[in-house]
């Protein structure tokens, strides 16, 4: 199971939860930059940012995990990550309320996400790690982005509606 693989992770805070993303996929961490809203895009990837001359989508994981989305403050960061989407490499920024540190999460401390007792869709969680008595959620970014990649079609329909 993927849940049992040890990972070196970058921990980020979203609302009051700790999330871990694979450190090897992180390209850089940016302070908040101006975000361009994309009309009709799904709320999860509603913005575009400029990362060193590249136009990169900005994703808000809080949308996918049903969390509140407070206004950005001085702790807000953008984690620029590189990963595969449908077999093609892509770069996206992920909004973080705060970036903590890089840590190793041992395989035996990772447990599979429980099917019940969780307010998140289980398929979006790869596993849950434990550290210092707290939980770290390891999101399945590949799965989340794939789901969203195919979801922009309904947005086009809303475009039709708004035009009429």
């Amino acid at each position: 199971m993927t849940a049992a693989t040890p990972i070196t992770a970058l921990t980020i805070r979203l609302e009051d939860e700790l999330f871990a993303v694979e450190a090897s996929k992180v390209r850089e961490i940016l302070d908040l930059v101006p975000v361009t809203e994309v009309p009709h895009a799904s709320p999860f990837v509603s913005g575009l940012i400029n990362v060193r001359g590249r136009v990169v989508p900005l994703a808000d994981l809080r949308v996918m995990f049903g969390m509140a989305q407070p206004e950005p403050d001085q702790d807000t960061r953008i984690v620029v990550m590189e990963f595969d989407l449908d077999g093609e490499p892509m770069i996206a920024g992920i909004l973080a309320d705060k970036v903590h540190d890089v840590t190793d999460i041992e395989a035996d401390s990772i447990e599979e996400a429980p099917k019940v007792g969780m307010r998140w869709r289980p398929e979006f969680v790869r596993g849950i790690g434990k550290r210092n008595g707290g939980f770290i959620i390891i999101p399945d970014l590949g799965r989340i982005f794939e789901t969203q990649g195919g979801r922009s079609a309904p947005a086009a329909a809303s475009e039709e509606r708004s035009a009429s």
Partner: protein
Amino acid sequence: MNIADPTETFRQEARELLDQLEAGLLDLEQDPSNSSLINSTFRALHTIKGSGAMFGFTAVAEFVHEFETAFDRVRKGQSQANTALIGIALDAKDHIHRLIETPEAQIAGGSEILAALRIVVDGGTPTPTAKPAPAKTEKPASAAKTWRLVFFLPADALVYGTNPLLLLEELAQIGPCTVTALTDRVPVLETLDPEVPHIGWQVDIVADDPAAAIDDVFLFLRDNMELTLTELAAEEPVIEAAPELIAALPKLIEKPEAVERPAATSLRVPAERLDELMDRVGELVIAQARLSQIAALSSDTALKTIAEELERLSSGLRDTTMGIRMVPIGTLFSRFRRLVHDLSGELGKPIEFITTGEDTELDKTMIERLADPLVHLIRNAVDHGLESADRRAAAGKSAKGTVRLSAVYSGAEVAISVSDDGAGLDTARIRAKAEENGLITADTKLTEQELYQLIFAPGFSTAKEVTSLSGRGVGMDVVKRTIDGLRGTIELSTVPGQGTTATLRLPLTLAIIDGMLVRVGKGRYTIPLAAVEECVELPENAAAHARGRNFLDIRGSLVPYLRLREVFATPGPAELHQKVVIVSSGEGRIGLVVDQIIGNNQTVIKQLSKLHSGIKSFSGATILGDGTVALILDTAHLVASGQSYVDRTIEGKAA
């Protein structure tokens, strides 16, 4: 700088020559007696043979040699370039292609092609003895005379890869000969240019009448070289000719310097390097835009001057770089002539293939990616669009079907269409099939265009009955996807009994455009300037009709408009003094209502990621002078959606 593999260089050149050969053969089929066509075809063959031998492609050289020998009869007027010959020659060309691509593999079929070729050129009398090293057979040495050939190669011969040794070997095949090198023109070491062949040769040949054979050897050098051929008196000793030569030398020694070396007219550059250049220019353009913005706010005139200067330079650089990437679409069209030729033969349908607009230029990457969709469309037009000859005759049409391929500029786009004069699409049949597949229900109302678009649905293509009845099924979903990927559109139109036209509309380039920056609410958007016709103020009273009629009267013609605030669901009330940007695409035009027109800028087009590829209103994004991202409006899509909006409004009123 990586050193190119010479074998790969040869392959590349050979591929081009083969394309040239193919085009020449197909032209020849139309115009069999055109001697300049015959000659250029022959020359292509000869060059392939020469360089093939040089790069160690012996199988190629041997095969081409025989091909060339057969074709030589056509050149000499001993045989006609008829359809049968062209057909075999095209097979031979394909065979050469295979030999070049996989020289290690044992590729069969060569000898059959050559045998067929011989039969055709010899007018039906197979000559199995034709082991064609033509000169050798005419070797009645006994009656032969002695000829003295003196030649100096053109100064650029080595640069273009001529190997003097091969030339001498070819001469040696004409007859027994004595070769003497003429070294008198070799300059002193300090001034010696190793790329210039300073050595000449004197070749005494024993042959009957070698003039024609010698001409063949020097076919491609003849124009720029010195060559004299004189008949020697029976027993004239060889040495006696030398004094004349030596006497002539002082004059000649100066000559190489005077010879003008023709400048290289083209340069082969790997495509990746061009892409890289384009990226750099893109970054430069963005940096320049930022500088201009800062300069505009500054009172420093020196800074302003530099910013303006840089703007001019970078826009020039941008145009030049774009120009490098633009390729006339004719290079692509020529490929399809062969396709149609072969399909015509396969299906037994006589076809006239007409191409227009070959000069229309498109970005190279675009051209490459268009090849496959166009193959599909042409194949469909021939296979399913055109009826068989007797059905055509029964319908009162000429037995020969026509397929047209054309390219034309249309605003900021290029329109490429494939049309046939066949039976047209069977709309009832398409509808029935779509209902059967569950794509639509019996009461779905569709416009003609929407109905045709069903053909592009992925499930549709596999339905066998449709392809055999009304055609247009196979791989159309792939075509659609490719064109979507290029941010283009496909339209189909058909007239029952008269044929079908598929039109691809594509942006001119994928790289940089001039844009008009506008503001809608807080968002800024770029409209491709080439699509902009004009800008007008939105009439004050238009707001009163916001839900009633969204039309403008532009000098007497009706132009519908879309409020971008509505389209983009922009929060907040509309501002006063809104502007309307009139954009056009294809036949339609539409006004886009914006809050403010900010100005014009150069726009580096960045593709939207997959996550946003489903959003049709935008063709990409760009980075503005202040470093923020702006979306580029897809005018073609907006025009289309504006039109459907008008249709709905009218329908709504009628209901």
